[in-house]
């Protein structure tokens, strides 16, 4: 080992070495004082122990005073110097040694908390294989430009964000979404830097590299969240500003009143604002770090503390409780053939861009051209048919969306209305009993039905279903078990909503809501005194997510706005994470309370102990450091929640 590496080694382990040396000197000095009568030798060694351990503390204390940030190290330095001045060498050495040992352990454990994200950072590989000028070349991953094609072999980590242009594989997306099951990726699918290509070779057209990747955005967002102060933290910080000068004043006052130097020095030591200021940040950093590794991004301490109070979770139905893949379940013709009904509905909905419209259009296009059936009989939408057979749907001559109700279009010179009951009522269109019965029957199965009207006559109806997510009933149950009320919000009519609500087992539902109504419902819950979380898709539901106390966006991995704006963002489209996120928030809130409680209790007991002379300088320091470590340990439990 040359001098250089010895120096590096020393720098790296400086704190540990100082703790060890000061500990050995302290033990030696104490033993010597115990076994021999040569007091000066023992005292000299103990003072040396205090100097070795205290040099760095005193240096920082000097800077604290210089920068007018009176802190714990100023208090400890004063206590040690004071103890030496009055000849309590053993006390001085003990205080310094215990403080350096405590700080060393605190620094080490905090590093573990701070490192929770490091494993995510290390996920991104440094080099990427790109195809340039017709040949494969390895280049630094951050230098890959958008549009370049990167080749990822099986077993390799994907170095950039991009779209698959060639190949097929299973990709482990755990670093980004927290999902442990690999996801199948083929042509056109999005992949993320840091995820692991498991099976086949993939060619990926780059959309982002270096710091412009989803994983990097996640890490930046998580760090910003960890740094944002929670209300409890800012309260304690404001308090701590006056606390340390207050302790100094108390100590000086105590000396003036009693002339008892040991008492006033002990007050300095036990008054160090350790556990109180460290507790809340440790809890929050641990919780946010843990959540990030499970694919849940939390916006910061304030939102986390708020989320800990959630007592009502509102779910958007479509795409949240359901898969959001609406398909046509049934078509009924009353005054026309079912085939024609579907065709008319498809024309009218062609440009609506509504998810129900998309389902109708898809069903109309996917049917083989020659389907005919008798009268009111139903046609099953056949999505398996080859694209070659797809039939083109003509454009309407004019078209208008009636938000939350349906569409009105002009086709072939005739007026086509596709919509729900309220649209028909609005336009005074009569609904025959036969139609009404059909619609109700389908709705009671949880399907959504639209009427198809030509020139004021109801010619048929299209029933559509959106399958429930398998996880939905279990998630609702888990939340209920945690004492949280659950509500479903939907634009569907009463019958459909009730059927779905019963299937999920949700406590309550609100049906026939227009998008802006959802916001009003959330607002009403809040006015009733609930702390409301709203779960939605982060784009369509953005206003209600913003209105709720805690907005939870699902499937945020692909949408940067959701990552930036939602209070909580589930990277995966995975409803299962909701109970985890909510209960973790609750556990965090309790953890903060426990830490604050423990800190206050410790200081109170110590103060009582000092005033009744049970607690000496060294014991005070020992208990103080132990309380800090206890608080950190308690906070770190959240890393393993």
């Amino acid at each position, binding site marked *: 080992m040359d001098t250089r590496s010895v120096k590096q080694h020393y720098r790296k382990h400086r*704190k540990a070495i100082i703790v060890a040396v000061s500990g050995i000197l302290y033990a030696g000095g104490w033993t010597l004082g115990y076994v021999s009568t040569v007091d000066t030798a023992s005292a000299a060694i103990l003072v040396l122990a205090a100097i070795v351990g205290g040099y760095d503390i005193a240096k920082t204390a000097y800077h604290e005073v210089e920068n007018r940030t009176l802190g714990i190290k100023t208090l400890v330095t004063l206590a040690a110097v004071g103890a030496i001045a009055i000849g309590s060498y053993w006390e001085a050495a003990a205080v310094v040694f215990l403080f350096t040992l405590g700080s060393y352990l605190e620094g080490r454990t905090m590093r573990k908390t701070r490192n929770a994200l490091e494993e995510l950072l290390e996920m991104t590989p440094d080099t990427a294989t790109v195809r340039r000028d017709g040949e494969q070349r390895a280049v630094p991953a951050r230098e890959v430009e958008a549009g370049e094609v990167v080749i990822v072999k099986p077993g390799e980590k994907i170095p950039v964000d991009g779209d698959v242009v060639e190949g097929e594989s299973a990709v482990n997306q755990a670093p980004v979404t927290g999902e442990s099951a690999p996801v199948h990726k083929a042509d056109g699918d999005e992949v993320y830097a840091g995820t692991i290509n498991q099976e086949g070779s993939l060619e990926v057209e780059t959309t982002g590299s270096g710091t412009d990747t989803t994983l990097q955005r996640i890490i930046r967002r998580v*760090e910003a969240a*960890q740094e944002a102060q929670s209300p409890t933290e800012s309260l304690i910080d404001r308090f701590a500003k006056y606390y340390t000068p207050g302790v100094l004043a108390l100590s000086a006052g105590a000396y003036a009143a009693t002339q008892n130097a040991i008492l006033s020095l002990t007050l300095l030591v036990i008054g160090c604002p350790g556990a109180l200021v460290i507790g809340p940040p440790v809890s929050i950093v641990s919780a946010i770090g843990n959540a990030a590794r499970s694919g849940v991004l939390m916006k910061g301490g304030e939102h986390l503390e708020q989320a800990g109070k959630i007592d009502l979770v509102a779910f958007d139905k479509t795409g949240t409780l359901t898969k959001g893949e609406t398909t046509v379940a049934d078509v009924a013709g009353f005054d026309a053939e079912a085939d024609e009904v579907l065709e008319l509905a498809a024309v009218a909905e062609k440009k609506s861009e509504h998810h129900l419209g998309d389902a109708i259009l898809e069903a109309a296009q996917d049917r083989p051209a020659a389907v005919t059936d008798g009268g009111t009989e139903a046609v099953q939408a056949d999505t398996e048919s080859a694209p070659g057979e797809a039939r083109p749907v003509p454009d309407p001559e004019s078209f208008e969306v009636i938000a939350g109700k349906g569409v009105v279009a002009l086709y072939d010179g005739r007026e086509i209305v596709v919509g729900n009951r309220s649209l028909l009522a609005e336009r005074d269109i009569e609904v025959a009993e036969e139609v009404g019965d059909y619609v109700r029957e389908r709705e009671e199965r949880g399907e959504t039905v639209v009427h198809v009207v030509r020139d004021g006559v109801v010619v048929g109806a299209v029933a559509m279903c959106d399958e429930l997510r398998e996880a939905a009933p279990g998630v609702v149950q888990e939340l209920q078990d945690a004492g949280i009320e659950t509500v479903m919000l939907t634009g569907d009519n009463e019958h459909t909503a009730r059927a779905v609500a019963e299937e999920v087992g949700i406590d309550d539902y609100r049906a026939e809501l227009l998008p802006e109504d959802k916001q009003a419902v959330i607002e009403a819950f809040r006015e009733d005194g609930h702390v409301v979380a709203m779960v939605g898709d982060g784009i369509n539901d953005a206003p209600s997510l913003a209105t709720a106390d805690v907005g939870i966006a699902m499937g945020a991995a692909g949408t940067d706005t959701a990552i930036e704006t939602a209070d909580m963002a589930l990277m995966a489209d995975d409803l299962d994470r909701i109970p985890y996120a909510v209960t973790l928030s609750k556990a965090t809130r309790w953890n903060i309370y426990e830490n604050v409680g423990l800190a206050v209790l410790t200081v109170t007991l110590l103060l009582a102990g000092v005033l009744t002379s049970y607690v000496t300088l060294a014991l005070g320091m020992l208990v103080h450091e132990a309380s800090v470590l206890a608080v950190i340990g308690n906070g770190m439990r959240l890393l393993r929640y």
Partner: protein
Amino acid sequence: MSETQLRVMDFDCPSCASTVERALSNQEGVEDVEVHYSTGRVEIDYDDSVADPSTFEQTIENQGYTPQPA
């Protein structure tokens, strides 16, 4: 105006972070400093015609902490 980031993993209390923040902001040419106790991240905005970024690490070391690249 330039920006640099460092990381200090051995802060042992929140007030340690504020001490480093003060020390850095007292340095000539430094416009804005944020030191985060919870993540150990140090963000420095400085005027590169006045301040030498290589001195930032020294300043942090002088306070008794170990800076590393972010």
